């Protein structure tokens, strides 16, 4: 049996697709999860400055084993390093960067994305779930470009690209581009445009996996 995983891009390849699209000199915030895989995949010769909302601009690579500093972490609370030319700042200044529109790209995960670019990524709204929002609502409200990286469907095969989000929103009309294991899709006022499909994925197959009507470029 051929599973979707085998047809589409894997997580590393999805992250590579995002990495390829980041313009030289960009200021980028990478969310927790698959987005964290992006930094290592940015092509040679492209300089990107990474922001982590807990107070560091110029986040570097993962530290060598043994040289971790529990007071030098990213938003996912993992140990990181700082590049030469980095800066530390407090939370109000950090969100000045976010809310004030100074960051170029925010890469986040998603539970659902609607036709209009609405994003739901913080809560399933289930009773008993502990709601936790972190910086997501600030990122989607303030960053110039919001890119979502997500599996195209849920583990049990449900749509994630939906007509209307059923989960509580993170932001309305905020998503610019969606990177899934099956395709890269630009969200525009006139609809959702498929820019690229993973090898072996046909437009018909992609549409079948998507609740909203897709358009070909």
């Amino acid at each position, binding site marked *: 049996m051929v599973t979707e995983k085998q047809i589409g891009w894997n997580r590393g390849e999805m992250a590579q697709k995002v990495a390829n699209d980041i313009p030289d000199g960009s200021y980028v915030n990478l969310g927790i999860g698959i987005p964290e895989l992006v930094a290592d995949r940015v092509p040679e010769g492209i300089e990107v400055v990474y922001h982590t909302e807990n107070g560091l601009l110029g986040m570097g690579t993962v530290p060598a084993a043994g040289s971790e500093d529990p007071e030098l972490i990213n938003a996912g609370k993992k140990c990181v390093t700082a590049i030469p030319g980095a800066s530390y700042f407090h939370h109000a200044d950090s969100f000045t960067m976010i809310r004030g529109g100074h960051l170029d790209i925010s890469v986040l995960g998603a539970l659902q994305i609607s036709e209009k670019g609405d994003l739901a990524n913080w809560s399933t709204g289930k009773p008993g779930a502990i709601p936790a929002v972190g*910086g997501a609502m600030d990122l989607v409200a303030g960053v110039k470009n919001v890119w979502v990286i997500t599996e195209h469907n849920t583990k049990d095969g449900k749509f994630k690209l939906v007509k209307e989000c059923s989960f509580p929103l993170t932001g309305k009309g905020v998503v610019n581009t969606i990177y899934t294991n099956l395709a890269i899709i630009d969200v525009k006022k006139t609809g959702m445009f498929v820019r690229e499909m993973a090898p072996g994925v046909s437009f018909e197959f992609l549409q079948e996996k998507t609740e909203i009507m897709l358009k070909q470029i």
Partner: protein
Amino acid sequence: MINKIVHSTSEAFVDIFDGATIMISGFGEAGSPIELIHSLIDTGAKNLTVVSNNTGSGNVGLAALIENRQVRKMICSFPRTANSTVFPELYRNNEIELELVPQGTLAERIRAGGAGIPAFFTPSSVNTPLADGKEEREFDGKLYVMEHAIKADFALVKCQSADRYGNLIYNKTARNFGPIMCTAANVTIVQAKNIVEAGSIDPETVITPGIFVNRVVQVASPADESKLVAEGRSYPW
């Protein structure tokens, strides 16, 4: 002579009271003033409202304060993290109240509290459930929500070095909420790894000017929260 140094964490809590609102610095364990929190547990103060980004992990620090039933309400952006079990359990049992605030709004509300700004407008959370019941308003064709300042009776903050005036510097991303919380509390209590001579911190590099600090206590070797959690420790020891 101005001298804000006190000699023990317990001395720093002479005027703590039940029902106080307390800001606690830290993003996860980075910047969390664990020794101050343990002294706060020792005071037995109850019905606290705690403003902090997370809810602690394991059974030490902020998680222990919550586990000890001293917290009535949490105001935070991210109440569940790895190894955080105490808050989720109490929350599911309706034994603790939660005010969930987007992280940037939380930071700005604290900063506003310190800056004498009672309210401001932000685009964050507009059209989401976290804006429900809040005043919305359009500026230049875009929708914003009005948010109110947060002030506290006490702020507990961890820093790297402090002098007798209360001037502070921090360490890397352990800075996070510390500087803004120092500005927003009636009484700001700081634990510093180092106490240094006045004048030895370059005035160009002071992050928190002493005016925002009331008490400083040296904790030369603060515990590493994640180690305590890994070891399965709980406070009170």
